[in-house]
């Protein structure tokens, strides 16, 4: 049965037929990571580490600091000023440098950094506005007098007492991330309250932490190349080395095991694009109303059980399949109804309405056809979604309390270290189910009616191959495996039998992975080529 699957490619595929030793040497290197982390490299070829990396908060902070230090030396500014500038330019050092070197004064003005000595508002402190006379010891906020040491002003010279500066800064932090761009207390003054000033004013530890966290969040959330892991409670950051175009999905896997699309932050959805995924999800929720309507307006034929949709007001129904005539209300045979039951069930009424509603019916038929087309894709999308969750449950059983693997290990007298291929296969199933799901979304949006022509056929051919291989793999990991789980059956399970299972499952995993890689590759990159080759003549 194995050879039937492995026909697709030559050479390397032979290895799994007999040379299990090769497989083992491969696996033994994975021993340590077995069951503790999900290794990106081994899953359906997606989420390859080379294009992204996973960072913890500390290393993200170090990266931010490094960028700040580098910028400050390039622009000959303090690190606090460099930091403020970087934030303003969304941490894009190239844009910052370009604008800085072409129009420094303008940039300084926008960000709120003064040119030394230039904007000094000497003597124009708020004490003037309150009292009409300059009194450097009077704070214009609380109207108290202070010794000089208790007054504070930034380079702009607007002096207020430290206590007022302190409440001003704290209030800003309490208000949220906008505190990163807090300006001088003096309303007419544009001077930015930089990080060093803020931290010298605010002593409260909780608020200082919050302020530092705002900086980190700004760095992660505003840099194009960084994203928080979207798993609940995970604080890791994914860094993408080469950001894809806005609608091009990029699968990334956090070290916590969570897999998501870097571009849109949602669950992975290749080969569908991010916008396709979004449209599809919206459509599903919108159509659910229509589907409910159909369910509410259809009943199974009392004879053949096929769902019948009630088209018009009349209660006289005729099943399109078995021609059984019945009453919509009581589901009784129509033959039992007659004059006695009155005009409510009148067939004449039905006919006259039928004529007058010809146009209405046409519209209905069209709506029905497009709904049926949608249903075709939705049902398959949904079925694969369900299978995907089933496979996830199975995978959980490999680590949960039931721990199927330990049982298999005992029953087959095989060390755990050599069983990695089982969860591996299961992960492959999950990954492929997910991909298969989204190929239906892809199909729905790309192969509309006849115009797709041969491309649609080619797509369905690839999809069919992949799906067939996946069914075999899924069956093998969910059904065949159980022979080695139940102890009673295991008494006479020979080592040979288990080895056979191993090579079958390992082989199927690889073949299926190849099929899916090919499928996704063709759909994502090959469409133009397919067009050229098969052309929608």
């Amino acid at each position, binding site marked *: 049965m194995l050879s039937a699957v492995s026909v697709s490619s030559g050479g390397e595929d032979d290895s799994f037929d007999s040379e299990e030793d090769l497989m083992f040497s491969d696996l033994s290197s994975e021993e340590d990571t077995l069951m503790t982390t999900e290794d990106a490299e081994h899953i359906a070829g997606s989420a390859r580490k080379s294009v992204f990396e996973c960072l913890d908060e500390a290393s993200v902070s170090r990266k931010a600091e490094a960028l700040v230090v580098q910028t400050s030396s390039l622009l000959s500014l303090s690190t606090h000023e460099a930091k403020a500038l970087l934030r303003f330019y969304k941490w894009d050092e190239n844009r910052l440098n370009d604008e800085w070197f072409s129009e420094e004064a303008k940039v300084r003005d926008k960000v709120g950094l003064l040119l030394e000595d230039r904007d000094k508002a000497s003597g124009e402190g*708020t004490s003037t*506005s*309150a009292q009409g006379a300059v009194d450097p010891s009077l704070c*214009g*906020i*609380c*109207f*108290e007098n202070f010794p000089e040491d208790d007054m504070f002003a930034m380079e702009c010279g607007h002096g*207020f007492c430290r206590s*007022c500066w302190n*409440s*001003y800064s704290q*209030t800003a932090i309490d208000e949220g991330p906008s505190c990163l761009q807090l300006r001088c*207390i*003096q*309303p007419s003054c544009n001077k930015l309250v930089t990080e060093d000033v803020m931290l010298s004013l605010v002593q409260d530890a909780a608020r200082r932490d919050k302020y530092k966290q705002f900086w980190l969040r700004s760095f992660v959330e505003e840099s194009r190349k960084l994203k928080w892991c979207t798993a609940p409670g995970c604080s890791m950051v994914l860094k993408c080395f080469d950001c894809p175009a806005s609608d091009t999905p990029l699968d990334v896997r956090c070290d916590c095991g969570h897999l998501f699309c870097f571009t849109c932050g949602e669950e992975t959805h290749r080969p569908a694009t991010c916008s396709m995924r979004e449209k599809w999800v919206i459509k599903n929720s919108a159509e659910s109303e229509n589907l409910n309507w159909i369910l509410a307006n259809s009943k199974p034929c009392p004879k053949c059980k096929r769902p019948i949709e009630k088209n018009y007001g009349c209660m006289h129904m005729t099943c399109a399949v078995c021609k059984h005539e019945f009453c919509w209300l009581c589901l009784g045979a129509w033959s039992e109804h007659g004059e006695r039951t009155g005009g409510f069930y009148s067939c004449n009424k039905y006919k006259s309405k039928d004529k007058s509603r010809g146009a209405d019916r046409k519209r209905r038929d069209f709506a029905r056809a497009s709904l049926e087309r949608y249903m075709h894709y939705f049902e398959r999308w949904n079925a694969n979604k369900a299978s995907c969750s089933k496979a996830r449950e199975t995978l959980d059983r490999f680590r949960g309390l039931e721990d199927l693997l330990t049982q298999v290990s005992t029953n087959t007298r095989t060390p755990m270290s050599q069983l990695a291929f089982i969860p591996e296969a299961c992960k492959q199933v999950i990954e492929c189910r997910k991909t298969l799901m989204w190929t239906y979304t892809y199909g729905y949006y790309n192969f509309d009616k006849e115009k797709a022509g041969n491309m649609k056929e080619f797509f369905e051919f690839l999809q069919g191959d992949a799906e067939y291989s996946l069914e075999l793999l899924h069956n093998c990991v969910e059904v065949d495996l159980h022979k080695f789980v139940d102890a009673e059956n295991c008494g006479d399970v020979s080592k040979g039998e288990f080895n056979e299972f191993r090579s079958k499952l390992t082989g199927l995993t690889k073949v299926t992975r190849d099929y899916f890689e090919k499928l996704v590759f063709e759909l994502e990159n090959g469409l133009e080529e397919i067009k050229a080759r098969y052309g929608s003549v």
Partner: protein
Amino acid sequence: MALPKRIIKETQRLLAEPAPGISASPSEENARYFNVMIIGPSTSPYEGGVYKLELYLPEDYPMAAPKVRFLTKIYHPNIDKLGRICLDILKDKWSPALQIRTVLLSIQALLSSPNPDDPLDENVARQWREDENSAINTAKDWTRIYAMQDN
């Protein structure tokens, strides 16, 4: 809680040297609550009207802006039916260096120059943009009906 020196001083000055066309006095029960009257600026549709407002200094004043509201009905694109005022210094442009006096002067200025492009009441603002003359007439009518209480 004792009244901060700032509030005491501001109050004293508001009473001793009131700004032209504006009066503000603290209520007897609550020194943070002010009864305010603004006289409709001349050459505005509100000329001849006397507008009552309430002003409240929240606990964190002056770090937070005072809360101000018109009590007299007024037809103005930046003031809604409840008398709430759309004014930047009462929101994100607030600075603790501003004072009650500055706020009230700004409101008075807002009566002189309505800004239908940053509306609070969309219906009023639309009429202001589409037919300014009739909007001004409505505002004058409202001034006569609601803000002239000689009767």
